[in-house]
């Protein structure tokens, strides 16, 4: 699997490259600036890109902007955005095109390399992975008169885990239920959110989107 890595701090970039190589990924290019990232994404069209939000030269959200710009040209280009902090605002912007293949994680999640690599693969497959912090903050907000309010507490739990990019089997494990039960819950979720039957991955993305917009 070919990967482009964009991170301006040498130590972190080097660490990421080594971690990914240890897990059998092929590093196409490791870049350190926004413009370089934009170019690398469009020339290499990697299977997945790992992008730091803040990049030089402006040291603002240049990485995010470069990723979004590349995704406008290549819809669905899988991008996993890493950051020292997570903002729901940025999560929404990443999800807005509804094309899937996006992830948004805190940099600390790299510590747990198994989970991180799993998330990376999920994004490469076109899935959506949101940091638990993004998801948990949503739980703070009061449920309002929106489609998500129609979900049962259990269904909301399943949806939250879905937003974190977990597969049905992972959710089943986490909630101590059978995979079949999870599958039943997700069908019910899709129905309540008025998501027409289609490819399951896409529906998951849309469900997460509905959830985040709540």
């Amino acid at each position, binding site marked *: 699997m070919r990967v482009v890595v964009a991170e301006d701090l040498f130590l972190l970039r080097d660490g990421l490259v080594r971690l990914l190589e240890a897990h059998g990924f092929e590093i196409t290019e490791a870049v350190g600036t*926004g*413009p370089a990232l*934009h170019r690398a994404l469009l020339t290499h069209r990697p299977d997945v890109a790992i992008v730091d*939000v*803040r990049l030089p*030269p*402006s040291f*603002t*959200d*240049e990485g995010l*902007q*470069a990723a979004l*710009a590349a995704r406008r040209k290549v819809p669905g280009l899988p991008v996993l955005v890493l950051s*020292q*902090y997570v*903002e*729901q*605002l*940025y999560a*929404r912007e990443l999800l807005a095109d509804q094309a899937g293949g996006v992830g948004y994680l*805190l*940099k*600390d999640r790299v*510590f747990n390399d198994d989970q991180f690599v799993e998330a990376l693969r999920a994004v490469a497959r076109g899935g959506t992975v949101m940091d638990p912090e993004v998801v948990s*903050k949503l739980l*703070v*907000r*009061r449920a*309002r008169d929106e489609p998500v309010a129609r979900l049962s507490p259990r269904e909301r739990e399943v949806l939250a885990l879905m937003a974190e990019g977990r597969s049905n089997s992972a959710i089943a494990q986490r909630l101590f239920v059978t995979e079949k039960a999870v599958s039943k819950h997700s069908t019910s979720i899709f129905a309540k959110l008025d998501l027409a039957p289609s490819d399951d991955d896409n529906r998951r993305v849309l469900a997460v989107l509905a959830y985040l917009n709540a």
Partner: protein
Amino acid sequence: MGFVVTIFSIVCVVVAWLKSRDRAGGSRSWRSRVNAMGWGLLLLPIAWIAMWLFGVNPATVGLLLLSGAVLVMAPVIAADLAAVLLILLGLYGLAAAFAVFKQGRAVAQTAKAVSVSVIPGPAFARGKEVFASAKGVVISGGQGIATAVPRPPRATFPPKGIPVPHPPKATFLQHAYAQKIANLHQMVVPWSGPGVRPSPWYAALTGAGPQGYVPVLLAAFVFLAFGLWLVPRTLLARGALVGRLTSRVQRLSETRTDAVDTAAAELRRVERDLHDGAQARLVALGMSLRAAERLFATSPGAALALVGEAREMSSRALTELRDLVRGIHPPVLADRGLGDAVRALALETPVATKLDIDLPGRLAEPVESAAYFAVAEVLANAAKHAQARMVEIHMLHTGDVLRIAVTDDGIGGADPAMGSGLRGVERRLGTFDGILAVNSPPGGPTIVVIEVPCALLSLKTSSS
């Protein structure tokens, strides 16, 4: 004489012009430099008029020198002096007109009552050419050339009740007015000594018969009106300016003290948070790793557990650092500016929010930060104290003022004087001359308006 006056005036104006560049803020455009010199430019023309009216004597020459000096050395008070001089000229003219008027009536009555009279002094009325009192002033008739004679005594002419001969009427009147003017002169410019030379202009004005006071009066009114018109634009304006500056200085010292206190307290908080938080965790992390290092050889299992623990600890340190950074300067604020930072803030608030943000560019960073934390505080209050279910945020930048209105549907009763939160916000905004207005009747709704004067910086160029 005229040549010297002209040269002097030109030199003064040129020097003042050269010096005006600093006062015009270094601007080279002649318009702004004339503006910087202002009404002070009138000073020299006034001195010329005075010289013309009163003739060339030590007083008027002194006035011209003074005017030139003030224009060059103290341009700030030149305009004030111009206003004062105009008023003095006007008052002088009023007095002169009054004297002429009174004299004209007295002479007319005398002329009516006494048909034959005797001249008390010698050398009166020598035809049309010269008219002068015995010890008084000599003025050539209407030709604009004045000659000096020894100063006259205080007004004694015409002595009332003493029969006077009947001179040719016009000559008599001209003589009387000239005498009066000379006396008036003596009152106005007592130190002028023997050099007093009433101007031909006055002679012409006063030579016009009993109605001679009219043109003098008109001239006086013009001077007076112009002088009075200048007063609010010069003297009073400066008084008001001084008042404004005084209160401004007071306010600035207050807000500066606040700003310094706030910054110091903030640094103290950051120091404490780092000391008790991330720093302590990093120490513990190092100790765990060291222990793991020792245990590796003997009990790898325990060492592994310690390393896992260390990783947990680094995660927690990161979380704490993240929260700390958010409290100092939220990253989204640095990345995107106030508009998106408030959008992000609204997304994190447990209360439903409705946003209307019109902010086409970035603001100065300190203002962005102050405004952001103000909105954060107001939102937190709405969620925590007001039990609001819906908050509306309107943000607009117009006419160099940032205006934010936050309205909630909560229970109201908020008072900035009660909680320290809003007061802190008020103080922080005060550093930028910003204000915080809270309208929160019991029962709600609460409306908080924040206004900060600030310029909109150029649109942020987004990288591609």
